[in-house]
């Protein structure tokens, strides 16, 4: 910082920022606390903040219920599968547009972006009917396919902006050095693109993990990921708050960790490079 900041000002902004951060984070914190309470304590009034009987009982119950594990596995397969397939399709496409652009590249990119803007409800009916007729309803493959297509434009865009930042000179140097296109990809481009690839992978894993339109509408039991499993807690009141909290904490913990790692890329990915 070029300027001196008075201590007083620094104290005020620190206190204010921590207060704001705490308020925003509080619902999550409250949920995590509830997950360590007994069911009775979880909806007791007045609520207890820290001085309650800490227990791991809810986590044990949730883990033991086979359906939680089943849905967690579904989440991993669906989010992971759709992200990987999207990457496989997107890497060549983004590579091609970044390093061999034509007059139509810009239009192609914008068109891809516009497919992301089509509201899913607009095509809910045909997709549902197609899935029903092809026996894809409540299958992992069906969800992988639709989430992959839904996120493909974002994946391509993110990769495109990362590839764009790799200096063209370096690829030309590799060509002068006699690298074929295959070797250029293996020895030069891929190592340089790893950070960009990793953050694209991460962000799309998060988006796919949290996707809650297609998963709620196209799966019920067999292929249902955690989003659907958690939603099934919406009807009974009161009785299962602690267990709901434990299941929710488990469902969001891995994604929170990944998300914190990819927070910088988040801006770029979700604004299609409009804000860096």
């Amino acid at each position, binding site marked *: 910082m070029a300027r001196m900041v008075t201590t007083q000002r620094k104290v005020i902004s620190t206190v204010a920022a921590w207060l704001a951060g705490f308020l925003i984070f509080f619902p999550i914190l*409250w949920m995590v606390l509830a997950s360590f309470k007994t069911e009775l304590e979880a909806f007791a009034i007045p609520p207890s903040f820290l001085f309650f009987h800490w227990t791991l009982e809810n986590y044990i119950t949730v883990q033991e219920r086979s359906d939680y594990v089943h849905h967690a596995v579904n989440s991993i397969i669906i989010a992971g599968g759709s992200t990987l397939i999207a990457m496989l399709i997107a890497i060549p496409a983004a590579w091609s547009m970044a390093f061999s652009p034509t007059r139509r590249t*810009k239009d192609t990119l914008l068109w891809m972006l516009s497919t992301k803007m089509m509201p899913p409800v*607009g095509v*809910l009916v*045909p997709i549902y009917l197609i899935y029903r007729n092809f026996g894809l309803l409540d299958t992992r493959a069906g969800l992988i396919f639709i989430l992959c297509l839904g996120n493909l434009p974002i994946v391509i865009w993110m990769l495109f902006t990362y590839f764009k930042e790799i200096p063209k000179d370096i690829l030309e140097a590799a060509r002068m050095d006699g690298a074929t296109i295959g070797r250029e990809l293996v020895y030069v481009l891929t190592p340089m693109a790893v950070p960009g690839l990793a953050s694209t992978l991460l962000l799309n894993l998060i988006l796919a993990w949290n996707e809650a339109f297609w998963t709620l*509408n196209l799966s019920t039991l067999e292929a249902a990921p955690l989003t659907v499993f958690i939603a099934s807690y919406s009807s009974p009141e009161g009785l299962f708050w602690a267990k709901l909290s434990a299941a929710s904490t488990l469902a969001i913990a891995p994604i929170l960790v990944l998300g914190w790692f990819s927070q910088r890329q988040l801006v770029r990915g979700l604004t299609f490079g*409009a804000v860096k």
Partner: protein
Amino acid sequence: MATQQTQLLARTLLTPAVALLFIWMIVPLALTVYFSTLHYNLLDPGSEQFVGLENFRYFLTDPAFLASLQNTLVLVGSVLAITIVVGVPLALLLDQQVVGLSIVRLMVIAPFFVMPTVSALVWKNLLMHPVSGLFAWLAKLLGLTPIDWFNDVPLLSVILIIAWQWLPFATLILLTALQSLDEEQKEAAEMDGASAISTFIYITLPHLARPITVVILIETIFLLTVFAEIFVTTGGGPGLQTTNIAFLIYSQALIQYDVGSASAGGLVAVVIANIVAFFLVRIVGRNLEA
């Protein structure tokens, strides 16, 4: 020739992505258009017949449509207003020298990574429950009558949950933009005798105009089709009080199995989203030139 080979290869590599996205966009959309002209109910198979624009007439004159359109607009508008009005000062605050900034940042961003069904249920059960929720306890502590959130102010409740989810997004983008603001520009303004407030109005705010536009457009795209939060908290009710267009189409398609009018509704949603998308694509496209 060498570089022509590269170009041919590039075209080949691009094709699968373009073809997939094209099919994904055209086939379902064409089917939606087709279905929207049919009388088609899944509970009454075999009775499909062409009815022209009847479904649109039915959907658009349905009182439920007007109610859900109003709900959609109120929801989008309110969430946008909250996230911007809270997001700008929050971003300005996080742009100051703060001890432990990285931890504060993490706390502020966290809600964005929580899956929609989880945040909706946590708010509904742990915070907004009329008897055992934390808000009810706080109200009693202050000597007020607890609010029965989802019965008395259902739409506001949904809005608060969604605003909480999207506040981090707005803040993060605005913060990123603030950090790219040239420090020397602010110093120059200070040398020119500008007060902190005039610096904010004449330097910072114009700098934020673009990111704010981007936030508004992107949030609008996603908020127009909010679904999971309504699905797990209110189911569109009570009555139609929290039914937005997305939820209305869902209930017509998968609860009443009225394919025809749900498709007509879907097309209406596509048109509304396209109006917003048009402006967003223009902004992003302009950025692509630079």
